[in-house]
């Protein structure tokens, strides 16, 4: 029997040691009538049969399309060294580093990951990871609620709708007010937004670049929030930080985001990486594990999980979050990736993505009937308005081997003809050209 170590003989010896006649006797505490005879699923297959099955299933997906899909999840190149390091079984077959002396590998990786997140965002303290960008944003909002003792959350509609609907879901059973603020011309409607911040506001929740790829400087909103005693939560796209103003420099109090772009495969939606960073003052309010540096009796530097009094295994119903298992291996991938990328690499990558997106914008906007939706500046993603339903257009382009973008009708009532197009460093000039030509041909 695969993956079950004991042989029949060993089983017999062990049963004998226990004074039992059969393995069935091991389950004596379970009342007879609650037991079952076996499972109504197929018996096990050999490794090669299982591989063939999964291999066949993997071929029943259209993964060869030229990908202009984004929406918060990007087709960046993953250097082979990231995969090689993440395949080190010392990393992936260990668990939470409860025993620090036997887990310095994992712990130092977490420490370096936290450092990378802090350096990217400009913040002072990062946690060891949360499930994904959406739950991270929700946790940040709740952290603000706890920190301020207030109950209103103001959500910019430029925040990823995939995250906004999660926020609604998680808060629906709690007595919180969730206000959504409209955007105009791709950016937050400043007047309305600033007016809506009041003395009961726990947090303003922002995203940069926003879902439409539009860049903003939220300093004004954040200042107003602070002046009313509210906190500013901002979700960011890490790669953009090679070029764009950091959330810290805009004054954000809690920064979150989806770390998928940092060397994590798209993998049909997960596992991904929610990151979160804040200032030292709020650190003890933060959810999730935190790793800190310390020393042993010989003065040697080492790393431990710290500030655990925030966590469920200590504080139970009073914990800052219920999170236990997190996304450690994805965080490891992120630090492998950011270390390979380096300062220069990050800057260049951000530049390349932006430049290629600019080229795509130029090409697409020169197609008759196609217009760029917003005049606001964008990073590597932008919205185009098409002369007909974007879903239909995208469907037509699939036959040409192109996943042209995310149709926005599903997320914004009035945007059936809008298409969100993302460009990463993987898209060649030629591919962008083909997108433009094919789009023109199907319109």
């Amino acid at each position: 029997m695969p993956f079950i170590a004991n042989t029949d003989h060993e089983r017999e010896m062990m049963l004998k040691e226990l004074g039992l006649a059969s393995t069935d006797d091991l389950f004596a505490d379970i009342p007879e009538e609650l037991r079952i005879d076996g499972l109504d699923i197929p018996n096990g297959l050999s490794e090669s049969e299982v591989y063939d099955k999964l291999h066949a299933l993997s071929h029943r997906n259209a993964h060869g399309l030229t990908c202009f899909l984004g929406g918060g999840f990007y087709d960046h190149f993953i250097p082979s060294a990231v995969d090689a390091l993440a395949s080190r079984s010392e990393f992936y077959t260990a668990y939470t580093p409860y025993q620090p002396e036997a887990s310095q590998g994992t712990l130092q990786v977490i420490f370096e990951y936290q450092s990378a997140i802090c350096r990217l965002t400009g913040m002072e303290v990062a946690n060891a990871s949360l499930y994904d960008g959406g739950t991270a944003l929700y946790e940040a909002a709740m952290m603000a609620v706890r920190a301020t003792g207030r109950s209103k959350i103001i959500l910019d509609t430029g925040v990823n709708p995939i995250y906004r609907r999660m926020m609604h879901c998680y808060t629906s059973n709690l007595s919180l007010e969730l206000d959504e603020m409209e955007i105009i011309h791709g950016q937050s409607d400043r007047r309305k937004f600033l007016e809506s911040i009041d003395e009961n506001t726990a947090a303003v929740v922002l995203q940069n670049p926003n879902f439409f790829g539009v860049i903003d400087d939220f300093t004004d909103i954040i200042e107003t929030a602070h002046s009313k005693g509210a906190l500013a939560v901002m979700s960011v796209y890490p790669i953009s930080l090679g070029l764009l103003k950091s959330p810290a420099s805009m004054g954000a109090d809690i920064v979150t985001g989806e770390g998928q772009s940092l060397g994590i495969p798209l993998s049909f939606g997960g596992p991904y990486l929610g990151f979160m960073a804040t200032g030292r003052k709020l650190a003890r309010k933060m959810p999730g594990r935190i790793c800190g540096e310390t020393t042993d009796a010989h003065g040697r530097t080492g790393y431990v999980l710290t500030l655990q009094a925030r966590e469920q295994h200590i504080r139970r119903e009073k914990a800052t979050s219920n999170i236990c298992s997190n996304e450690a291996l994805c965080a490891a991938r992120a630090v492998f990736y950011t270390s390979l990328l380096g300062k220069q690499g990050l800057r260049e990558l951000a530049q390349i993505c932006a430049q290629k997106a600019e080229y795509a914008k130029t090409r697409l906007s020169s197609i008759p009937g196609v217009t760029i939706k917003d005049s606001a500046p964008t990073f590597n993603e932008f919205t185009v308005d098409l002369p007909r339903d974007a879903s239909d257009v995208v469907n037509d382009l699939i036959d040409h081997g192109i996943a042209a973008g995310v149709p926005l009708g599903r997320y914004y009532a009035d945007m059936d003809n809008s298409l969100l197009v993302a460009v990463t460093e993987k898209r060649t000039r030629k591919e962008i050209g083909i997108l433009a030509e094919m789009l023109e041909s199907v319109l």
Partner: protein
Amino acid sequence: MSGLIYDKSTEGRRGITLPSLSTEESQLKLRIPDRYLADSTPELPEVSELDVVRHYTNLSAKNFSVDRQFYPLGSCTMKYNPKICEKTASLDGLMGLHPLLPQLRGGGMLTQGALQILHDTEHLLSEITGMQAFSLQPMAGAHGELTGIMLIAAYHRDRGNRKTKVLIPDSAHGTNPSSAAIGGYGVVTIPTGKNGCMDMEAFVDAMDDEVAAVMLTCPNTLGLFNSDVHKLADIAHAKDALLYYDGANLNALLGHCRPGDLGFDVMHINLHKTFATPHGGGGPGAGPVGVNAKLLPYMPTSIIEKRTDGTFTLRYEHAKTVGFIAPFYGNFGVIVRAYTYILLLGANGLKRVSENAVLNANYVRKRLAEHYDLPYGRSCLHECVFSASKQAAKGVRALDIAKALIDRGIHPPTVYFPLIVPEAMMVEPTESESKAELDRFIDAMIEIAELAEKDPSAFADMPSTTPVGRLDETKAAREMKVKA
């Protein structure tokens, strides 16, 4: 050899090559006004690919892991993760799929293979647990718990029930009370009786009309099966309270008994435990949530359905849903591994899994019983909890024993959990270890018990074979140096 990756940074060193821009692309002027731009670039380390590879390869050598050590960390089911699961999960046609692809054509026609994996996995889990349906979206056990609480809340809201609290035994994992609280409920803790199970009387007393749910782990964190579970269920159901099953210990029951048949209404499974997906140094895991008919209407969006023509699609419209608890379909990469594992083992294999997991735990329990206290001494299921109180009396605490094990090349059991056992040492060997390996562990534990008798002071310097000795946790918390 040591130091942080940031300490190894040298200005101008490169670890990556990026595609160069064509002239057509590079000649365009970016139209981003200065006020949106950063003054400086984040200080990521400037190192070569070799630097990165050598640094992290050397760090990996500082870990204990299942692939290198026996790792009987109780409650965590550190079984061996078959290598084939890593291979299937990284197939291009799975790992490379953008999560928004299903939206591009005919409700998932571009991702039929991926949707079939999700669909089949849900059905396999339903059959394995006796639940009616599963959602694979929760991204860990605790996330499954929270989802379960949200389902429970939706159920009560829908029925007009006014419920304010959740009953949880004191032996429960910390995530249980935490999830209930974060879901908006008050938590009532029920003590454990002499037999190691939730005190029946206390439970009955607490079981009033305001109870939304009872969260049980079964077998519980002492590795004990509560034979009264059916009775508990009846009592709870009589008040229209729901019974939640924390599936962290499902490895004990596979193929022998199903939570759905025991009267549970909602449950999660930790795929990273029972179904052998690797623990990743803390994650990612997956915590699929299963429900019986009562809770079916409230399941998270989206729902995977098989059309009559055999194709698969995602349904987004269902009126009573709790909504979106994940961005997409859960931790797909983890789910593929679990699916692979279930196909490998099958009905016959899974049944043997629990038999051997339970046999191994009982063998360790029996062999160590005269050396360590067993507060709840009766036959256990997949794990057993010792107490080091006998040794603690000599000044050797559970933590000291843990460190001694490290020096013997064995990862320690879970210590100080469950909280109700003083000096707890929770041993879960799993079925992937053989008697030979257990004997080695038992010998080490006996030797340590003898050392604790003879020379309690010997433990102070342990571990001594690791890159660092015991670390100053107070200093870490005080100085809060959490980044470089």
